[in-house]
């Protein structure tokens, strides 16, 4: 048995990162209290759609359901949905006690803690301030998150204005990522793969659907994503370098964009444009940073001790899982959860 079971590991955030950490802690016999501020577990992942077509495309969205089931049956642990972190008492050796507050009633309770894991995730970039793309103003411009919600709710018919007609869809990559003008000079990691999976899904589900992906340069790490791209090319997805900076609604319907193709400025028409929105630091990061004394980095994500100690916060006893320290894809989050749990076990053993 590792550690003292009267004290728990507090997990802040019940998205896929928090659930992954909870599951691994439980597998290692460590009790936890998971605190989730919203009224449901699962975070962003639960709103996103399975991208399987004839076979699984490794989007990993379904992991969240497995994790949730496992976590719900963990013994000696508790899950507090509708609660948030309100304060913490630490000593030199780390976190001692935390107080959590029920969001609705404001009622507080205190928990003896051995460690605290931040897993508060990210906020989806809201492109509404990027006026040239007209999100929220021009019909037919949606985000990758919107598209996922549409697919998830089996509402793809909504995309096609004419049931039998062709549907021309364009994806714009790096929206809210790699953009110094909004303090987001980083790659959001998940969007290239997600856009390609969504392209394959659309082609599979919507007859007559043509897809073009406008990118700066495709970021496709890992052993499966290159194959995905080749498959997409075989299925007719166009990959075009250069992201159009403006969307114009046409009088006769549809959306016009201009891009450079083979050295010429070419105007094209699309029915729908999907903005592949990046990951921004969570809006609650600043407040939580204050409560814990856990510093944020230049982008507003949680700082870690070093590049190679990427799960420990400079604040003693605070560990950082998933996308609240850096933009991450679902597999990255799962790996980070494993590293967090290893670090917690190592630190508890060292202390005892």
């Amino acid at each position, binding site marked *: 048995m590792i550690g003292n079971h009267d004290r728990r590991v507090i997990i802040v955030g019940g998205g896929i990162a928090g659930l992954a950490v909870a599951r691994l802690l439980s597998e290692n016999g460590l009790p936890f209290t998971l605190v989730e501020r919203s009224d449901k577990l699962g975070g962003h992942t639960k709103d996103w759609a399975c991208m399987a077509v004839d076979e699984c495309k490794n989007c990993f969205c379904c992991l969240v359901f497995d994790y949730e089931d496992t976590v719900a049956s963990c013994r000696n642990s508790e899950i507090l949905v509708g609660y948030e972190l309100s304060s913490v008492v630490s000593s030199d050796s780390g976190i001692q006690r935390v107080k959590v507050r029920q969001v609705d009633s404001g009622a507080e309770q205190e928990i003896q803690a051995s460690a605290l894991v931040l897993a508060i995730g990210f906020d989806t970039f809201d492109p509404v301030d990027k006026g040239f793309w007209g999100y929220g103003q021009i019909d037919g411009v949606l985000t990758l998150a919107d598209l996922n919600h549409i697919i998830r709710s089996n509402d793809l018919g909504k995309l096609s204005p004419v049931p039998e007609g062709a549907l021309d869809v364009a994806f714009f990559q790096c929206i809210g990522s790699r953009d*110094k003008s909004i303090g987001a000079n980083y790659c959001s990691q998940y969007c290239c793969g997600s856009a390609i999976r969504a392209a394959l899904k659309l082609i599979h589900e919507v007859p007559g659907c043509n897809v073009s992906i*406008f990118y700066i340069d495709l970021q496709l790490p890992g052993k499966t994503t290159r194959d995905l791209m080749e498959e997409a090319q075989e299925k007719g997805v166009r990959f075009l*370098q*250069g992201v159009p*900076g403006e969307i114009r609604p046409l009088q006769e319907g549809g959306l016009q964009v201009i*891009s450079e193709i083979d050295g010429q400025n070419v105007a094209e028409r699309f029915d729908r444009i999907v903005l592949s929105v990046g990951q921004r630091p969570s809006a609650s990061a600043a407040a939580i940073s204050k409560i814990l004394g856990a510093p944020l980095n230049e982008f507003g994500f949680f700082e870690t001790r070093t590049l190679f100690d990427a799960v420990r916060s400079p604040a003693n006893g605070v560990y950082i899982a998933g996308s609240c320290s850096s933009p991450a894809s679902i597999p990255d989050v799962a790996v980070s959860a494993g590293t967090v749990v290893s670090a917690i076990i190592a630190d508890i053993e060292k202390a005892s």
Partner: protein
Amino acid sequence: MDRGTISNSAQNMNRTNSDEHSKNIDICFTCGQCVSRCFLSQSYPDINPRKIIRKTLLGREREIIDSEFIWACTLCGRCTTDCPQGLHMDVIVRRLRFLACGLGKGPKRILQGIGKALEVGNNVGMEPEAFVDMVEWLVEETTEEMEGSENNSISAPFDKKGAEILYLPNPREYTSNPKMFQTYLKFFSYTEADWTLSSRVFDITNWAYYMGDAEAATTLVRNIVEETRRLGAKILLSTECGHGFKILRKDAETWLGEPLGFEVLGIVELAHRYLKQGQLSIKPASIEGRVTYHDPCNVGRKLGVFEEPRQLIKAITDDFVEMWPNRKYSICCGGGGSVGQNTDMGQKRLEHARKKIDQIIKTGANVVATSCQNCLSQLDDLQAGNDLPIQVKSVIELVVESIEA
């Protein structure tokens, strides 16, 4: 700014110079956003802002320098609005123009204007006596026109030391469009401003800036700054002139390397200040027809003066309608950045303005207001050339009309 040769122009562009936001252009990661935002992308299908950077970095800048594109570009800056890498295309194009000028490819009329400005103090080569005569004649004309009205104390003080405001006109006001000057005379009279003109410095334009000639541009700015200090004005008041206002507000201190010691204010901002202080006797709903506002690139996108003109217009009309897109996304009128003055470009600026015309027509407005002499002139030509059912007015013109209504 050094006079660079073609072979090292990429290097020169990378060198820090006195221009704002001059950065290494090799940080461009070819995202391509600029391609589609350029209002010239369909008029010049084989060139675009991104290609300017790529070709320069690949040592093929001569193709750009020889192209008409750098002269059709209005330096509007729309293409690099919120550029992910923070590049400013207008800075890059001005640099390329400077290199072109060094090769004898500069537009003659503009270069002559710069010569006159450096020699005489204004780009039309008007001697101070002639300017004073012209103004005095305009004062008489205006006084005559206003006979019988309550407000008829038109005057134009010259070189009045200690006046609060030094007003700096655009030569258009005392050459091709004296009505504009009369409008401003009336504005100062109606607002009882403590103002003066200078008999030495009476040209806000800076064509050297258009040509990327930082040395000459700085000299012209220094003349203005020194005259303002000599007269002890608290406010250097810009006429409705986009680039002139932008340079004085945004670049002058950097170029001169010292604080100006006075405030640079646009006349629209001054009118807005009077409005807020209740000193502007305008009348609500006094302008007939639907009014829209064209954001001049320099006043809007580059200086962020968006709300003042709108609040003034809304104070005098009940029927204000926005063009779309507007404010920092506004589409250039097509006549700025020297294109309107560059006789080598013929009437191409009118053909390049299709998007602006469409935007105006869509509003259904009867009056298009703006606050830049260049935009006014271009919009006037667009109106005439296309028989548009609109009137083009400056914001101050509307304000004065409202006061007189």
